[in-house]
């Protein structure tokens, strides 16, 4: 593991890992969505796809879906803007994938004399990067809406833009509280900060300073706005199946599949960000670089690789739990009407997140004396 090969492995290893995890999570979410909603609703859910009679609880459905989408007619409306129409789904998926890049999934890995940050791209302004990618994703939808030469699609694109802007503001403002508490725009730093004990003067080292505890209001605001950026129920006005079908009315085959995929990828990104910012990221309670250090004094020594593996596993576990919650929300809540979503974004989330910033600043001043 030296020289160029090592460099490449160090640079592309985390990228490959992120791509692998995000794409697979996104793919499997199509199955989770169907199965989880079915179980919540006393149904069985997708279970028909089989290979030689082996059904595996419907786990083959994502595969079947992919085959179906790849073999379907790739339709293009006669008056469509051909380039934009083709480009739009790629734009959507690209930014969905790219957004995950600066979310850290583990602490620094020390191996073969190298220090590898377990994060695809190490950025000082990681949070802003994720925000930027999420907000650029909307261009895919707007391109699709415009290029389809269909008024419903256009309406969907407009709604996507309006929703994106109103959710964007709330996300940015709610994150600011977290940034203030942990004093960095680097998500790795924020994740590390969450390993510190919360108010050691009072609680000792019993409670880790997870974002959920330091910024409870921001958590709810971020989660709500984050769901809005995934444009899934209850914020699915860009689609609005019952009224305008959405920006992808004219899409079929794999291009349509890519839009659906982008939704799931964004869900994964939101889950990852929530985990990184509010659920302690890769932090395992009481696990430090050398092993577990419990507040009652006991210690369990662990080798470095085991610690890192534990951290990565914990991160993935938290993301999966978060995905489950996001799915639960999607299948529990009814849709917001267009104006209600706008109202919620601008008159609910935005002022509350500003309030959160003010209160956080005040408390920080008091605490730091």
């Amino acid at each position: 593991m030296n020289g160029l090969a090592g460099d490449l492995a160090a640079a592309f290893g985390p990228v490959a890992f992120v791509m692998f995890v995000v794409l697979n999570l996104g793919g499997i979410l199509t199955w989770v969505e169907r199965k989880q909603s079915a179980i919540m609703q006393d149904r069985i859910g997708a279970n028909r796809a089989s290979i030689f009679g082996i059904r595996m609880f419907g786990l083959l459905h994502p595969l079947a879906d992919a085959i179906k989408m790849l073999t379907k007619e790739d339709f293009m409306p006669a008056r469509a803007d051909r380039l934009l129409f083709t480009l739009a789904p790629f734009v959507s998926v690209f930014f969905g994938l790219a957004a995950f890049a600066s979310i850290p999934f583990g602490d620094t890995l020390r191996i073969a004399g190298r220090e590898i940050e377990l994060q695809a791209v190490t950025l000082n302004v990681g949070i802003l990067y994720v925000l930027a990618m999420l907000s650029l994703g909307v261009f895919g939808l707007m391109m699709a809406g415009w290029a389809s030469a269909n008024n419903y699609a256009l309406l969907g694109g407009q709604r996507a833009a309006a929703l994106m802007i109103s959710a964007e503001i709330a996300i940015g403002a709610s994150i600011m509280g977290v940034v203030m508490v942990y004093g960095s725009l680097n998500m790795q730093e924020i994740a590390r900060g969450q390993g510190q004990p919360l108010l050691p003067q009072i609680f000792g080292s019993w409670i880790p300073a997870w974002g959920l505890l330091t910024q409870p209001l921001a958590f709810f605001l971020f989660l709500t706005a984050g769901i809005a950026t995934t444009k899934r129920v209850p914020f699915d006005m860009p689609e609005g199946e019952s009224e305008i079908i959405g920006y992808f009315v004219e899409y079929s085959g794999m291009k349509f599949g890519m839009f659906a995929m982008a939704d799931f990828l964004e869900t994964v990104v939101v889950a990852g960000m929530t985990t990184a910012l509010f659920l302690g990221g890769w932090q395992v309670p009481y696990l430090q670089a050398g092993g577990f250090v419990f507040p009652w004094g006991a210690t369990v020594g662990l080798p470095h690789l085991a610690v890192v593996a534990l951290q990565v596993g914990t991160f993935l576990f938290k993301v999966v739990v978060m995905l489950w919650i996001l799915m639960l929300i999607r299948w529990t809540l009814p849709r917001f009407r267009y104006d209600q979503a706008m109202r919620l974004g601008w008159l609910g989330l935005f002022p509350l997140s500003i309030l959160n910033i003010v209160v956080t600043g005040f408390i920080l001043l008091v605490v730091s004396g």
Partner: protein
Amino acid sequence: MGSVIAFWILAALVVGSAVGLVVRRNPIHGALFLVVNLGGVAALYLMMHAEFLAAAQVIVYAGAIAVLFVFAIMVLIPGKEETGPDPLRAQRWLAVPLGGFLALEIALVLRSTVFTTSRSPATVPGGVEAVGRLLFTDYLFPFEVTSFLLLAALIGVMALTKRKAS
């Protein structure tokens, strides 16, 4: 070496998209070229280690301003724009030499003054901290004024676009 290659690629991208914006008749294409252009400039900022600016550029310019542009185009759909006879046709032919002249002028100014002075050692103070520190110390007053400007713009937009209840 890698950075030079990257610069030239980005420069080509930025200039190409700018030309596309000016030349394309369809305003949506223009807006998307603008996005590409802004993204390219953001990448240039990154190359100059102005990471905060790069992110802000993408979020504010590409994420918000360009979205607003596209949104406005979608709402208005001026599909039949610039189809009639051009009342100021001569201006069109005048524009290119004028632009060339301006370019020449800028080039001359740049050559004569800025880069003839000796270059100070590049201690890159980029980063968020440096910018933040400047904004909240030296530039605190302009910062506050900017916030008022934004507020005024907010109210102005609402006043402009609100339809009167008939």
